[in-house]
């Protein structure tokens, strides 16, 4: 992998080999100005819902719908935040969200790593048929079969437990596929070398393959965490009590009341839920993109 990546022609990341002349830099400066001119309004448009979320979370209830009140809150009113946290046990929800998302991720990483390695590097009867079966899951994610899965979980007595939100997602055909592609890019000689160095399959997987496909693991982690952190439908169906509920359900509580949404608190809640992810992304976005670059999904 090292050899293949290192020798790849580098894209925008590398500094130009020739020192740019003055004329060229002027041209590129004009081009980037032009780009900013287009991107700034589009970016503002994109970001306006977020601005609205944050501003609304700082308004009073009456201000939200008062046509005279204007876009900005009259005074910064932070009372919505404690009020939101008081509506439901958001602390418990947060812990549950972390437990559920984390357990799914760990479970998935274990199952997909093993399965992807078997599909990428081992020979066994019915390999093609089994791989097709795995891909089947990519086509039929749980939302197409949630009904029967609900019944199944019911029979296991898992309704209204944390595992109910975890177990249906532990296997991932999609993750297996993604990781298999990456594993196949690891040069065969590396695993040969590891065998000579005394490694069995599990050790090769652990010492050689996993360190090398780190970017794919990160990319998959992003996809998985974002999906399950925000999932609303499934936790809604399989949980009853505050003990096991997750953050989106807490937001739903504020959103789905019969007399209209509780806007200020809903937006405060949204801000609370989104901020950690957002901050994380802003800091690591380069890393994320690099991860996607190396995923074998090309």
């Amino acid at each position, binding site marked *: 992998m090292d050899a293949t990546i290192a020798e790849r*022609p*580098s*894209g925008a*990341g590398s500094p130009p080999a020739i020192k740019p002349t003055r004329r060229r830099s002027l041209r590129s400066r004009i081009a*980037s100005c032009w780009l*900013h001119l*287009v991107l700034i309004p*589009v*970016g503002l448009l*994109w*970001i306006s*819902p*977020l601005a*609205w979320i944050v501003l609304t979370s700082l308004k009073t209830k009456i201000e939200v719908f008062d*046509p005279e009140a204007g876009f900005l809150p009259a005074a910064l009113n932070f009372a919505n935040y404690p009020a939101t946290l008081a509506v439901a046990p958001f602390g418990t929800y947060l812990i549950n969200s972390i437990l559920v998302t984390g357990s799914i991720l760990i479970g998935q990483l274990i199952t*997909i790593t093993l*399965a992807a*390695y*078997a599909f990428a590097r081992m*020979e*066994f009867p019915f390999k093609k048929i*089994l791989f097709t079966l795995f891909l089947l*899951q990519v086509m039929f*994610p749980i*939302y*197409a*079969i*949630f009904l*029967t*899965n*609900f019944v*199944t979980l019911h029979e296991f007595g898992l309704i209204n437990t944390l595992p109910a939100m975890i*177990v*249906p997602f532990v*296997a*991932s*055909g999609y993750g297996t596929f993604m990781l298999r592609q990456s594993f196949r890019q690891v040069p065969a000689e590396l695993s040969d070398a590891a065998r000579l160095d005394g490694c069995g*399959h599990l050790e090769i997987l652990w010492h050689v393959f996993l360190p090398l496909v780190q970017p794919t693991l990160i990319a998959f982690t992003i996809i998985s965490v974002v999906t399950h952190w*925000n999932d*609303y*439908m499934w936790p809604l*169906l399989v949980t009853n009590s505050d003990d096991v509920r997750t953050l*989106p359900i807490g*937001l*739903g509580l504020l*959103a*789905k009341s019969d007399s209209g*949404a509780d806007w200020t608190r*809903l937006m405060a809640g*949204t801000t609370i839920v*989104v901020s950690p992810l957002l901050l994380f*992304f*802003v800091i690591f*976005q*380069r890393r994320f*993109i690099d991860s*996607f*670059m190396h995923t074998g*999904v*090309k």
Partner: protein
Amino acid sequence: MSQRFARARRKEALLAYAFLFPSFLFLATFTYWPIIRSFWFSLHDVVLGDPEIFWMGAENYMRVLDDALFWKVLANTAFYTLTTIPISILAALLLAVALDRKLRGMAIYRSAFFYPVMIPSVAAGMVWVFLYAPGYGPINAALGAIGLPHLDWLYDSDLALSAIVIMSAWKYSGYFMLILLAALKLVPSDLYEAARLDGVSGVQRLLHITIPLISPTLYFVVVIGILHSYQVFDYVYVMTQGGPADSTNVLTYYIYQNGFQYQDIGYASTVANTLLVFMLGLIGLVALTLGRRVHYLGEK
């Protein structure tokens, strides 16, 4: 073939099966078994909460064929999928091409386009309910400002589904953009330089170099897009409950209604089975049309 050869092969196969077992256990329980079971349910009268079930044969399938709402729901689902995916991928591609360079504030732009992915769908749906509000909603205010007539968006059965499509594009473009951005970085820059020397214009470079070279990623993104289109449930559930006049009712929501609201598991399973067929058809179509045109870098 020698004995020991067969033995070693068997050992490796056993280990491979051991590696596949954890995945397979969960897949069998939560994918294959439900598919089989869903078919079995569809042949019965099954009611949520009632242990008794009755054989119905093909009656549920007859009901589906006869159910005008089902066909409307199917059409809605097809419309949603076939508009959301192209629109968000096109937007993602343009954004990715624009952002694939060194530029001041790039991190901010990328974050600005990606953050909707991280907003929980419940909250996102609610925010857009506000944005779409008829009198005071910012979108109508903006339309008014540039001299366009106000629209009723979610209150108009001709517009409501399109409104959800637009918000979905806002929600997913950034996600696809990130994946495409990564793919763009792998396109060798000498190809662009060669094209530039040949006097190929920017748009042509996009059409004839960029798109063919990242076509495997585009294909991947299309498949991901189809999978994510299931999440439309959350928006329908939060924003419109399928209305007005069933114009935003989609298959997942319809299954939910039948199974959980009406407790009619048998019928809901029947609809779910048609959804499976629909998905299979759609992915098959994509594989046959787009999948064949994919150019793999470095592959013959």
